[in-house]
């Protein structure tokens, strides 16, 4: 019998114990941090009360009064373009009894009216009236103080809107740090940038939220998890095919990778974009960014903690042509073991209608809840969650040791710590390192 050398404490005490659970240097992460209700409670406060969260893209709310209901971390929010055209993020909760003031997923509205007692707010959040208002005495209602609660900060990069509830939070630019460089690269490459098509797909999975985040910069699972597609000839029958590329730790828990295709496959390069978009890319990107983008076939990145972009390519049928697509993802934790998944499809605004159609078809057929690839991922996350709940499992670590001794390279055109490989758990360790720092209250 194995010695099972990686046994861990089973009870959570002070903050010191968290460090015992997450050993980033050795890549040994406790199974407990995924499912323990006490840790989940602490996450609510130290992560979901403090970080910056993606709430939507500006193309989702083009007109004044356009709004969508979105979680901001774990709180219900409203992303709205107000009458003045300003983008705001509001807590979806009336100041009187806390009732939801927006009860649809999207609408165009001039006012937000609470159904309970009829308090009415402007889309800027300002309280304008209450039903039977005359029954309030002169200093009782205090409209100016009781507007809808606004996110502490709202800011954008490349049309991606982020918000935080923490007044002490650093600015978005500071928060993103080196990651901003890569978001500019990926989302700013074509004329007019990218736009959201339609509305997000939303579904709920019985998984701990971190099994989702853990998976995004993981290329290593592809050959095994998605092996059905290898069998069908839709992925190369080469276990190493997704291993050529670069993984980047952009600091503060933000991570990403660029994967390169075979050297002789021109189609796969420049994210697989059609010729006219490649032309635009060459115009829009600086030489250093272009050196990264030109050879890249796919790229996936995470903005700490729960926002991900997946710029992928795949074919949707056997022997079909591969098309690129952009997919945004976000986890909304509902409980230690249940997570709501959000998925947006995006496409270059200036692309041809035919490319837009094919890109979307390839996305819907291969990713999202009905996708040929994604189906199997969710199967993993659910069973990872169930298998890590018990008193025996929680005494042990998981194995995040791949590439623990690997040295970064120094000749990369962009910022961050970079490794010349795309099989490795360097990015996951960086993510858990940030998790630990945040949970310790740093």
């Amino acid at each position, binding site marked *: 019998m194995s010695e099972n050398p990686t046994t861990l404490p089973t009870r959570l005490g002070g903050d010191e114990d968290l460090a015992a659970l997450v050993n980033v240097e050795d890549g040994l992460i406790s199974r407990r941090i995924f499912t323990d209700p006490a840790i989940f409670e602490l996450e609510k406060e130290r992560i979901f009360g403090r970080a910056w969260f993606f709430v939507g893209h500006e193309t989702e709310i083009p007109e004044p009064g356009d709004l969508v209901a979105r979680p901001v971390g774990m709180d219900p929010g409203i992303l709205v373009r107000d009458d003045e055209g300003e983008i705001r993020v509001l807590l979806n909760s009336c100041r009187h009894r806390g009732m939801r003031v927006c*009860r*649809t*997923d*999207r*609408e165009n509205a001039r006012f937000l009216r609470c159904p309970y007692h009829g308090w009415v707010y402007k889309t800027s959040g300002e309280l304008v009236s209450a039903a039977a208002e005359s029954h309030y005495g002169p200093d009782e209602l205090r409209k100016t103080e009781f507007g809808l609660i606004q996110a502490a900060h709202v800011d954008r990069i490349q049309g991606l809107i982020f918000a935080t509830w923490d007044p002490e939070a650093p600015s978005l630019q500071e928060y993103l740090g080196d990651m901003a460089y890569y978001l500019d690269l990926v989302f700013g490459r074509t004329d007019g940038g990218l736009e959201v*098509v*339609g*509305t*997000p*797909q*939303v*579904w*709920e*999975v*019985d998984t701990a939220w971190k099994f989702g985040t853990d998976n995004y910069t993981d290329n290593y699972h592809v050959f095994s*998890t*998605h*092996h*059905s*597609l*290898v*069998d*069908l000839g*839709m992925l190369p029958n080469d276990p190493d095919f997704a291993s050529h590329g670069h993984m980047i730790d952009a600091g503060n828990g933000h991570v990403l990778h660029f994967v390169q295709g075979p050297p002789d496959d021109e189609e796969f390069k420049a994210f697989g974009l059609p010729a006219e978009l490649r032309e635009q890319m060459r115009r829009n990107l600086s030489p250093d960014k272009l050196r990264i983008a030109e050879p890249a076939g796919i790229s996936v990145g995470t903005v700490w903690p729960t926002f991900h972009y997946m710029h992928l390519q795949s074919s*949707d*049928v*056997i022997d*079909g042509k591969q098309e690129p697509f952009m997919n945004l993802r976000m986890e909304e934790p509902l409980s230690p073991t249940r997570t*709501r998944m959000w998925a947006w*499809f995006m496409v270059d605004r200036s692309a041809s209608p035919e490319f837009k159609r094919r890109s*979307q*078809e390839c996305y*819907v*057929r291969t990713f*999202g*809840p*009905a996708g*040929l690839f*994604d*189906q*199997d991922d*969710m*199967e*993993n996350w*659910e069973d990872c969650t169930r298998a890590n709940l018990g008193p025996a499992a929680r005494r042990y670590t998981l194995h995040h040791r791949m590439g623990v001794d690997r040295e970064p390279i120094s000749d990369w055109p962009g910022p961050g710590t970079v490794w010349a490989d795309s099989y490795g758990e360097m990015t996951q360790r960086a993510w858990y390192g940030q998790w630990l720092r945040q949970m310790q209250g740093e």
Partner: protein
Amino acid sequence: MDQGIDAGTRVKPGSDLYAEVADLLLCEADALDNYRYDEWLGMLTEDMTYVMPVRTSQFLTDGKGFHGDANFFSDDRESLTTRVRRLETEFAWAETPPSRTRHFISNVLVREREDGELGVRSSFMLTRTRQDHGYQMFTGERQDRLRRGEDGELRFAGRVVLPDQTVITATNLSVIF
């Protein structure tokens, strides 16, 4: 989203044509629930389209909440065939081991359209269990276009699946509606 499903003349229950349509819907459900996917593919026309739009919660005045521009499924015969071929590999983990499904098809309304096709609306309830977990349940409406082939058999030429949920409460959509 509107494929003119309510255009045309009602086909009355009790008629042979209605019975033929109802029979096809039940045979289809039987094939899907018993993992006979090739038989199911044989029930589709070559130009079959299969779409399931994303639903959102909206005020009634803003429509039923469907967005033709955002889908859970947007498939054609070829991509559906790919889905089936995938299930036949031993690595389609989402359905390995397979889900146990049961399609309940009811409220069938049939219309004869001017273009010779039949327009069929039906309600579905699809129950699914995996391993020793509880039920995942999907309900909604299906709108089917049926066309008679040269061999005289009715086949599905188009299906739109309109879910009742805005948030799908299921691991994934590795099942066919």
